[in-house]
């Protein structure tokens, strides 16, 4: 059992570290607002620099501009970037999810047109999946793409929780192309240019007052025939690929968001010692125990990845632990430091405001527990009333029930 790098990994890590040392001066600040045009431009330029140095899209195959390495090397790069206190790529969604999605399902033309600018930060991407009525039940999306006589598509609908929508160049859109078959058989994935006519983007302000994600409205948007990714009617399969890639980040991501036992302990340590009661110690001990556990769960996952295994749904349990431990930490830190901490300008105030939403991001806890219970433990499912029913009929039943 060895937490250390192999000799090859160690020398790779050193090369990455050396590169970061050489280029650190070019990096913008880690914290900044993408509403600030200058900061956004700096982050794009830094992503280009990272891509040129082989620090972006570490697992992307060489023929698509990446170093073609494995998940361990990606983690090494993420760790070194964190340690160097420089930002990572601007477009995590594009580089981590949409790019790999295109690599898996896109046509040669799509890959050729999009992957280069995506990797280099010239074109940022957003994910157009969830809708107001289709988050947990993603296959129930209602945004509609209708095939026209000339082979183009007409798109109408609405998406929600669209991170980076307001400066993205393209979005990966899950839309309904056939309402007369059961819900997940009638879906198609499309590439949508975010500057197309008929698209309206509206920020959704969160608890902390910032609008880091958006609603996006599609009104008679025209899409070319070559916008389809993975074939008409195969949208659900393409979506599942993206959701699988999401698990890699969720399973290994907590510490990158600053949810670390040592950091929270430092925050408590800096509060007046009179606040360090037995109850406070036990609360800190419990949440720190959980965060230390998920750190080692991450190491176990890396070991499996190195052995060629793909993370299963149980990876979602690490997210439950991490988010709930971070929530407990926020509660504790605000208790020992007082209400001044709640200011969104304060790093913990921001975290406290951000966490309730994060708890649902990537899947609510209830859905996650259902999925793990059923797919990992083999527990029986609840009766489902929508299996095999044409989507059109599902929606009319819903309308009747709520009329």
């Amino acid at each position, binding site marked *: 059992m060895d937490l250390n790098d192999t000799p090859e990994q160690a020398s790779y890590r050193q090369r990455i570290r050396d590169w970061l040392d050489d280029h650190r001066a070019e990096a913008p600040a880690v914290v900044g607002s993408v509403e600030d045009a200058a900061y956004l431009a700096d982050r794009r330029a830094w992503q280009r620099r990272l891509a040129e140095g082989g620090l972006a899209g570490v697992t992307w195959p060489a023929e698509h501009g990446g170093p073609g390495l494995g998940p361990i090397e990606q983690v090494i790069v993420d760790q070194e970037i964190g340690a160097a206190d420089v930002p990572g790529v601007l477009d995590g969604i594009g580089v981590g999810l949409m790019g790999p999605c295109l690599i898996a399902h896109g046509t040669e033309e799509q890959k050729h047109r999009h992957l280069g600018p995506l990797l280099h930060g010239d074109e940022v991407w957003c994910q157009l999946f969830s809708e107001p009525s289709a988050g947990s039940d993603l296959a129930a999306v209602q945004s509609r793409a209708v095939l026209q006589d000339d082979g183009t598509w007409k798109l109408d609908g609405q998406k929600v929780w669209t991170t980076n929508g307001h400066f993205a160049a393209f979005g990966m859109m899950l839309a309904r192309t056939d309402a007369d078959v059961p819900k997940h058989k009638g879906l198609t994935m499309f590439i949508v240019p975010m500057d197309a006519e008929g698209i309206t983007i509206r920020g959704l302000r969160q608890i902390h007052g910032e609008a880091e994600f958006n609603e996006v409205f599609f009104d008679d948007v025209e899409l070319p025939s070559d916008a389809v990714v993975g074939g008409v009617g195969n949208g659900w399969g393409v979506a599942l690929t993206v959701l699988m890639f999401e698990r890699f980040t969720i399973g290994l991501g907590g510490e990158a968001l600053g949810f670390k036992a040592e950091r929270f302990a430092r925050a*408590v340590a800096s509060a007046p010692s009179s606040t360090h009661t037995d109850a406070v110690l036990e609360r*800190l*001990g419990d949440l720190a125990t959980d965060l230390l556990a998920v750190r080692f769960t991450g190491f176990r996952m890396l070991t499996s990845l190195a052995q060629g295994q793909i993370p299963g749904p149980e990876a979602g349990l690490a997210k439950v632990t991490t988010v709930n431990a971070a929530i407990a930490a926020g509660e504790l830190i605000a208790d020992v430091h007082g209400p001044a901490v709640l200011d969104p300008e304060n790093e913990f105030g921001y975290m406290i405001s951000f966490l309730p939403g994060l708890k649902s991001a990537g899947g609510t806890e209830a859905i996650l527990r259902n999925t793990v219970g059923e797919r990992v*433990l083999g*527990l029986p499912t609840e*009766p489902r009333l929508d299996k095999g029913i044409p989507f059109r009929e599902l929606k009319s039943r819903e309308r009747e029930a709520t009329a």
Partner: protein
Amino acid sequence: MNLALSDEQEFLKEAAQGALARVATMEAARAAIEDESQRPNLWPLAVGAGWPGLVIAEQRGGAGLGIFEALLIAEETGRALAGVPLLGLLPATLVLDAARDETCEAVASGERRPVHVPARPAARATDEAWSVDAVTGGGRGAALRARVSGGTAVVSGAAGHVVDAPGADLLTAVAVSESGVPICVVIEAAAEGVLVTPVRSYDATRSLAHVTLDDAPARVLPVDETVMARAWYFAQALIAAESLGAVQPCLDMSVAYAQERFTFGRPIGSYQSIKHEIVEILRLMDNARSLQYFAGWSGESAPEEFALAASAARSGAGRALAFASRALINVHGGIGATWEHDAPLFFRRAQVSSRLVGGTHDASSRVACELLASAGTP
């Protein structure tokens, strides 16, 4: 980065499972509740498997293995609720081996059975004293006291609920000298002034005793405070491993019942509240497993983190078993609270384990103390 078990570790685990499977430990656990003499003597099994010498160096007759191997075996005994006296034994072998003591060979071969009287070191960056589990009440008792002269000492004091003490022929302990310095000693259990009073335990798979010393003669072991502290944290990690092992059967039985028991026309596992409670067992168990890796790894490779890791393992595994043992009963409804089912055995194991060797809550506080002490260090 490689957290996979080595082939030797896999083999050790399988051999332990195999050896324990030959004993009807669950039936024995039931029988022992009514009649303690029914508790099987698993010492010969442990000796046959080479467990007494596990962490004793090869040159002193042992297997020369490490903390992680010990935890893997402890996990298997926990899974079977088998009363193998590892919790008292292995920390004693750790201090005896560190002292290169003359008893090592006899201990490794199983001729002599030592038991360590656990003593909790001060938390870092505090001026807390060493302490033992109190005889009465759930708090801390004063550490044993020693009058030292050269290589021998005379030891007095009392420690409560010492695991595996009944029938041990050798005791290792930490005692505080008149000048306030902790020393490590070894005491013949048959010596004058040694009183080992077995305590009837709610968990009949455990053998416990209060140990009272009244000017008992002892030999001083030449080990420093780090070793004495390591013995405490080793005990934390061992009880965590036992607890982790016991969670798996709770999960398995809950899943099986939830699949086969029907109500209102469908299996009870299809109801979210039951499904989610069972998934919670899995989540806590998986966390506890990760912490076992932390404890096992740090025990050998990062000893300066062992106090944190072992305490975290204790906290995580303790919470996992406490939850799992109750969830097992909840899922089974009324029948889970009767002897028609094995659930009460796991419940009793959880109840007692969470209060031994400092207790689960104390371990949680210790995690906080370790992190706060590190936070204070510039």
